[in-house]
């Protein structure tokens, strides 16, 4: 399993995606930042997976979210997708969108439901 990151537009489209080689981290990436900046006018959600199953934002996630919001000058919505569920910083974002299943497939989490 690996972590993946999707950038989602205001129309629900996947604007950009990348992946890690690790199940526990997506390292810093200039390419990811350049995609966020280039797509900032359409970007509404930054989503990533937690193959570990932790359905919460980590300390790294939270400081990254704060830095991104400061840089863009507006708050984005942030989403964590695990094999079992999804968590969003947006109050209306708890209903799973179509791309959550795609993220699980890209992360290799399908079939890894915990009992």
């Amino acid at each position, binding site marked *: 399993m690996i*972590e993946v*990151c999707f950038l989602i537009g205001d129309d629900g489209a996947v604007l950009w995606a990348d992946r890690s080689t690790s199940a*526990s*981290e*997506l*390292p*810093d*990436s*200039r390419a*990811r*930042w350049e995609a*966020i*900046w280039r797509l*900032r006018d359409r970007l509404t959600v930054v989503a*990533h997976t*937690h193959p*570990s199953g*932790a359905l919460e934002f*980590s300390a*790294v*996630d939270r*400081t*990254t979210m*704060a*830095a*991104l919001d*400061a*840089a*863009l*000058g*507006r708050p984005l919505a942030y989403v964590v997708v695990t094999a079992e569920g999804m968590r969003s910083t947006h109050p209306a974002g708890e209903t799973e969108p179509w791309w959550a299943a795609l993220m699980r497939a890209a992360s290799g989490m399908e079939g890894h439901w915990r009992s």
Partner: protein
Amino acid sequence: MAILNVTYRGLSADLPSEVEEFLSDDDIRALAVEVVRSGGLPGLHAADIGEGTFRHFVVDRFTAAGGGQRIYLRPKVPFGR
């Protein structure tokens, strides 16, 4: 010397004056706070920003296509766990 670019509050701009390319990352962050506070970053004046505003930003250093040194202060973007 290097051109410093700072991204903050939806703006990405170069400082009008070049900076020493051997400044430390912390020096770059502190310099960015000062220029944003003073209005030295074209298009942005935010006198209210705190000392730690850029603590979760990274300093990207590279040689531009034309050969000059560039320093970008941008938000970090790792996620994990």
